[in-house]
């Protein structure tokens, strides 16, 4: 009799794959809008046309009533004028430390951000004239000279003090880009920093109180508390997070989540850190996976040989 097993197997595999296709790729394509990454190019923002001068940039950043009036630059020994909890209650957000921004954020993005933060961040809908609100970071209108040159100088300085790409760790990228609004409790990260191991319960309670106070101010500013990102890599997936950081408005029109403005390398690092938190055993999974596959394939070969031996007499 003709052996029908290959045909039967083909039928089973066919219907299984059709069902899989319909309930997974097809259904998800119908449920969620899909956006392709634009490669973190920020082509809606103008390019930097001038060549920046680091020394001049330093003067502008450090000058009276300039950046350091609010921002710390800890790598240069400049502390913030107020602590995070006070800053967030005064401004709604805590101004980021500028040590790493030159390595984390895209130049075009910074170029616009310095002059018009709400536009670069794509949160102008929150700061309309009718709302009476203005973005907490004052726009830079120039220091008397050519503003294009001055902004280029500032960016040149920020880049000069920023860590080289190989020195920027995933954790640093995450903290600068996401960490002032998002907690990540699987990595012990809170909006005011990594939660240390306390010896005294009182100190821990004080820390927790500060986090809660900070979160209350943040809630007021953002509308709701930004979510904890511990396992966002599993709940949202890499593609969604990447394209969401690139432009949150395309997914959630009117959201108060700003465009993050990362450059492509820093975005990869943020993703890496999200994986370290939410998919911590991925390397172990891959290596064990291959070993198990090899083991099972050998098992299948022995099973085939055994079957052949047993069935030799039965045919």
């Amino acid at each position, binding site marked *: 009799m003709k052996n029908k097993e290959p045909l039967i197997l083909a039928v089973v595999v066919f219907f299984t794959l059709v069902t899989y296709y319909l309930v997974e790729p097809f259904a998800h394509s119908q449920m969620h809008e899909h956006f392709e990454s634009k490669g973190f190019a920020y082509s809606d923002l103008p390019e930097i046309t001038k060549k920046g001068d680091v020394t001049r940039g330093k003067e502008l950043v450090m000058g009276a009533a300039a950046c350091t009036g609010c921002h710390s630059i800890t790598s240069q020994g400049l502390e913030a004028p107020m602590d995070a909890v006070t800053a967030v209650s005064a401004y709604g957000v805590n101004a980021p430390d500028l040590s790493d921004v030159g390595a984390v954020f895209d130049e075009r993005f910074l170029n616009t951000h310095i002059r018009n933060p709400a536009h670069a961040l794509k949160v102008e809908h929150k700061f309309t004239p009718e709302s009476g609100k203005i973005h907490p970071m004052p726009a830079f209108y120039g220091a008397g000279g050519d503003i294009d040159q001055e902004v280029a100088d500032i960016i040149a300085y920020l880049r000069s003090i920023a860590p080289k790409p190989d020195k920027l760790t995933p954790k640093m990228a995450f903290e600068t880009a996401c960490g002032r609004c998002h907690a990540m409790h699987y990595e012990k990260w809170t909006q005011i920093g990594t939660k240390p191991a306390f010896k005294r319960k009182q100190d821990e309670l004080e820390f927790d109180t500060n986090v809660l106070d900070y979160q209350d101010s943040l809630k007021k500013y953002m509308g709701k508390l930004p979510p904890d990102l511990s396992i966002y890599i599993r709940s949202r997936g890499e593609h969604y997070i990447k394209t969401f950081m690139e432009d949150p408005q395309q997914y959630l029109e009117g959201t108060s989540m700003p465009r993050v403005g990362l450059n492509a390398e820093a975005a990869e690092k943020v993703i890496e850190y999200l994986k370290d938190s939410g998919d911590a055993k991925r390397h172990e999974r891959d290596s064990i996976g291959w070993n198990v596959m090899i083991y099972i394939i050998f098992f*299948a070969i022995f099973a085939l040989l055994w079957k052949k031996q047993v069935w030799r007499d*039965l045919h």
Partner: protein
Amino acid sequence: MAHFTKATSIKDWLNQRLAIEKVEKVMASEYWIPKNINFLWAMGMVLVITFALLLVSGIFLLMYYQPNIDLAFDSVNYTIMREVDFGWLWRHVHGVAASVVFLIIYIHMFTAIYYGSYKKGREMIWISGMLLFVAFSAEAFSGYMLPWGQMSYWAGMVITNLFSGGSLHADGLVEWIRGDYVPAQAFLNRFFMLHVLLVPLAIIGLIGLHFGALRIPHVNNQDGEEIDFDEESKKYLAGDKAGSKVIRFANDFMSKDMLVVAIYLVFFFYLVFFHYDFAMDPVNFDPADGLKTPEHIYPEWYFLWSYEILRPFSTDIGLIAFAFAQVIFMALPFLDRSPNTIPASRRGLFKYWFWAMLIDMIALTAMGKVPPVEPFGTIGLYAALIFIGLWVVLPFITKLEKKA
């Protein structure tokens, strides 16, 4: 009391007390299986192995899981996934096996339908199998509650709501099932109990019944041939292994079972390590939040077809249709009026009924997941009507069938 003699060996000692030789014969070497069967007959063994994987991985998970609404989510996603050595492996094995076990159950079911393995003396095999399907469904649903993610919570909310019976407004029954007005601690605790004790006990009992139900009518074969098992087994034992139409369960059939199991395990572990997302819904990686309904709520893929029978209708009619879909498969041996126990390909109209049912259930499955917008709403409605229609016509088309 039986007469015992001084044992000559450990085997003899055991034999006198437990009759192990006899047991071995009854269970394995003289448990006769037809020779003309294909790999679909190995799905039972594949299910046994998958159930064993679920049981073992579940035992490991149980050592760290916390059935508490404040701790459950992190006990799974932090403690088991990050802190416990190989916790991630047990969880992925458990999650993937829970999904794949239904794929195999459906293949097993449709094999039985195709070859008529529920007919003429095999009704109890079918009924015990469908009871196993119900028990596995309860096991899957209760297990899905335990990580206490968004889908756990909202699926728990939606499914327990079904028990209000639409216009009957049996809200008291829903509260009784939940132990609260909404899914909360009492709800999680009882579903934990169901998942780790009561339902597994029922499953183990039903597996015993399912195997027992096979003994008297014997396993069906792929040609619809009526085999005289006594005659053929004598032939085999007399040495005519090639001429006999039956083979021993062990090692003859077992060796083929194991080959199929091995190939299945290659597929299974590929999914566990490299393609597990289909079995672990992303939405359930957000912690349960009773104030935030997810954008799309849908059951796991294996419940989608029955969910879609509920969805296109108004509440009351939907619930009746849903209830119909849940029980109707149980009645298959009695709705099929044909006297033939042969493959569907040789059964006239039933051949078309079989493929129509398979394709219709896949259509229902697909429509159950996508949002109920057009054209999916209409396709879902027609697929649901066709499902009901196919069951209505089944007795008539099988009655028309001529005796083969």
